[in-house]
């Protein structure tokens, strides 16, 4: 068993090493086999682990080798295999494999083919370490490692300066979060004398809710999650991260890495459950993020940017779920989101591929005919994210909404609004891309083609997942058995025990809530159909006169500019000031001043040496007299 567990992350690492060392010699065909196969085998092994786990639950962490052992500090390389990590492993290796296969087609003509797959394999390795680790430091290895891969892949086309800037921005913003995570770990260690999940949770279980230390720990860890999962105020890197190749956006910036924050909080569920203050902070942050990002998405015209803002907004959804203690709901939405958002990105990639790199949806249109497979899969994903039954997004969103309604009605209203905005911008995207007539250049029209099978087959597989993913956790309302909830229950058992249960919703209320949401969403879809397809509006040029508020949103609330003004520039100014003023004029001048002082003293005092022997003798006599005089005095 332990050998299998080691193999799961080791295979992608091996893939990385082989491809990384031989990136010049290995032919593309072999790369195209090695890279996806390592992930496929990992996936198969994960499935094996999954079945094994169902037979034999509750296993202790699998110890591999000691990492940092220093007196009482014991950090081992150890894997914790429980339902939560298995779920994530399945998503990462499963979706990761499909995206790898897709990438073989997508990156076919890129000169950096081998390099790309090396980075992708490395990413899967680090992501698996993040998920499987049995302690916070091991999670942190993966946490920083995926950040590195994200950096490398965003800046994959490194000749472009903007892409490099985007990559650097992502890494630095993640590092800000990582500092919070690191400090959180230190506080955990000084509080619990351990960094191992089991030991910490066992000790934390008996602590009183609202403990200040716990609040501080959870807030610091949440800072890490803010960075990694792109929440306010550290979200601006994610839209820029779309500079990377589209499969990267699908894998890293939609399905897996950005959900690490959600996973981390779900993993630390007990700590968070005992810190109501933190939960409120998470709730407010996430709610604002969800609304904010959704509003920006409505006015974007870059197909990938829309999806990026949508990802931020959906992540906000998951965090809201976490903040009300609906951990299963959050994980469920994480899973379904991984399916449909990966599908959306891959579909977008297919469109971009067909149009030869065009990303502006105003120059698309009518692609329904020429890209039928892409269109149908994209449609499924769009319906899923909008929450149309019986697709996966409907169930996961509904679970979150129901959970939120139990604790706070006003939050529920905002989330419904976000859901409506989601439906609107997604259908706007769909209509503008696939409906009406083509608005691109004649040359592009000529080259329009459906993607090859190696790209469309992963699309279709993902479409199936996006469609039926909801089956994982059909609520009792529909006669289901909430399988996922049952599967994850042992992980969240302690937290659920602590949580004060609100009275569960009656079936009637649930039906009403669902009905209200669904009908509103359908109205929005119909309205946007009217607006974008029938009237063919919404294509004003950028300089068209608009109300001030809309301008503000189109410019993304000027957040990037504000950060630039408040942080980047002052730091650069400070750097210049410290060097030119403090360093050169103050410290170095003081140091040189000491030397100059010595030289000056010598220069001044030497004038005593007049060269006049009589004068010397006079001084000598005076000196003798003075010495005698002092002798008499003392």
């Amino acid at each position, binding site marked *: 068993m332990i050998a299998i567990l080691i193999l799961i992350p080791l295979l992608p690492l091996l893939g990385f090493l082989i491809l990384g060392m031989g990136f010049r010699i290995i032919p593309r065909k072999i790369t195209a086999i090695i890279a996806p196969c390592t992930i496929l085998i990992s996936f198969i092994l994960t499935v094996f682990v999954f079945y094994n786990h169902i037979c034999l639950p509750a296993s202790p962490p699998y110890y591999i080798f000691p990492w940092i052992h220093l007196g009482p500090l014991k950090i081992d390389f150890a894997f914790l295999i429980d339902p939560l990590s298995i779920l994530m492993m399945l998503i990462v290796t499963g979706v990761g494999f499909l995206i790898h296969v897709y990438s073989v087609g997508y990156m076919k003509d890129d000169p950096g083919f081998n390099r790309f797959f090396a980075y992708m394999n490395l990413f899967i390795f680090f992501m698996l370490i993040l998920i499987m680790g049995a302690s916070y430091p091991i999670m942190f290895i993966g946490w920083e490692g995926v950040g590195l891969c994200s950096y490398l892949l965003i800046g994959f086309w490194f000749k472009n300066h903007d892409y490099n800037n985007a990559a650097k921005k992502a890494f630095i913003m993640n590092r800000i979060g990582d500092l919070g995570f690191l400090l959180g770990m230190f506080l955990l260690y000084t509080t619990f004398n351990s960094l191992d999940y089991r030991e910490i949770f066992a000790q934390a279980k008996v602590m009183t809710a609202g403990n200040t230390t716990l609040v501080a720990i959870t807030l610091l860890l949440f800072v890490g999650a803010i960075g990694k999962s792109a929440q306010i105020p550290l979200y601006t890197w994610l839209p820029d991260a779309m500079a990377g190749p589209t499969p990267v956006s699908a894998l890293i910036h939609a399905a897996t890495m950005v959900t690490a924050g959600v996973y981390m909080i779900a993993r630390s569920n007990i700590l968070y459950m005992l810190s109501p203050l933190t939960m409120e902070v998470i709730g407010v942050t996430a709610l604002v993020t969800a609304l904010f990002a959704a509003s920006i998405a409505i006015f974007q015209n870059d197909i990938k940017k829309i999806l990026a803002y949508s990802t931020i907004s959906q992540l906000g959804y998951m965090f809201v779920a976490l903040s009300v203690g609906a951990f299963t709901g959050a994980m469920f939405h994480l899973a379904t989101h991984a399916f449909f958002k990966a599908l959306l990105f891959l579909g977008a990639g297919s469109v971009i591929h067909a149009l030869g790199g065009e990303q502006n949806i105003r120059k698309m249109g009518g692609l329904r005919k020429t890209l039928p497979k892409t269109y149908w899969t994209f449609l499924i994903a769009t319906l899923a994210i909008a929450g149309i039954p019986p697709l996966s997004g409907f169930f996961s969103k509904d679970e979150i909404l129901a959970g939120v309604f139990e604790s706070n009605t006003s939050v529920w209203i905002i989330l419904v609004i976000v859901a409506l905005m989601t439906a609107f911008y997604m259908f706007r995207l769909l209509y503008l891309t696939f409906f009406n007539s083509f608005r691109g250049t004649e040359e592009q029209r000529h080259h329009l083609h459906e993607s090859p099978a190696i790209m469309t087959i992963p699309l279709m597989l993902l479409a199936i997942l996006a469609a039926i993913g909801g089956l994982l956790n059909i609520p009792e309302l529909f006669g289901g058995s909430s399988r996922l909830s049952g599967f994850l229950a042992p992980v969240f058992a302690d937290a659920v025990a602590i949580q004060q249960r609100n009275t569960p919703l009656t079936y009637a209320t649930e039906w009403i809530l669902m009905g209200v949401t669904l009908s509103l969403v359908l109205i929005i879809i119909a309205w946007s159909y009217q607006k974008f397809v029938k009237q063919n509006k919404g294509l004003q040029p950028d300089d068209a006169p608009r109300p001030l508020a809309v301008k503000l949103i189109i410019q993304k609330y000027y957040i990037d500019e504000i950060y630039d003004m408040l942080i980047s520039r002052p730091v650069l100014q400070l750097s210049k000031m410290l060097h030119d003023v403090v360093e050169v004029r103050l410290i170095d001048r003081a140091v040189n001043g000491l030397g100059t002082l010595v030289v000056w003293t010598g220069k001044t005092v030497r*004038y005593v*040496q007049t*060269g*006049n*022997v*009589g004068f010397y*003798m006079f001084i000598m*006599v005076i000196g003798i007299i003075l010495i005698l005089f002092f002798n008499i005095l003392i």
Partner: protein
Amino acid sequence: MTPISTIPIHYYLIFCSTLFCIGVFGVLVKRNALVILMSIELMINSINLLLAAFSAYTNDPAGQILVFFIMVVAAAEVAIGLAIVVLIYRTTHSIDINVLNKLRW
């Protein structure tokens, strides 16, 4: 025999101080190197005399022994000093000390 102690010690003190001051005055005022050397000799001898006097008054021979040492050293010093003066005279054709100001600053 008239012991030396019949002459009061302060006579020696005053006499030697006077001699010493004349020596100092000579060193400070005179510009001729030879005269300065002589003045230094005068100072040394004033000290020698005082040492001898105190030695006699206190019946301690150490003082008189010291006088011999000083005389030896003084002789050596005069020998070197005169040699330097001769060399200076050869190069500058003068023994005026004010000419010897090349080593300033």
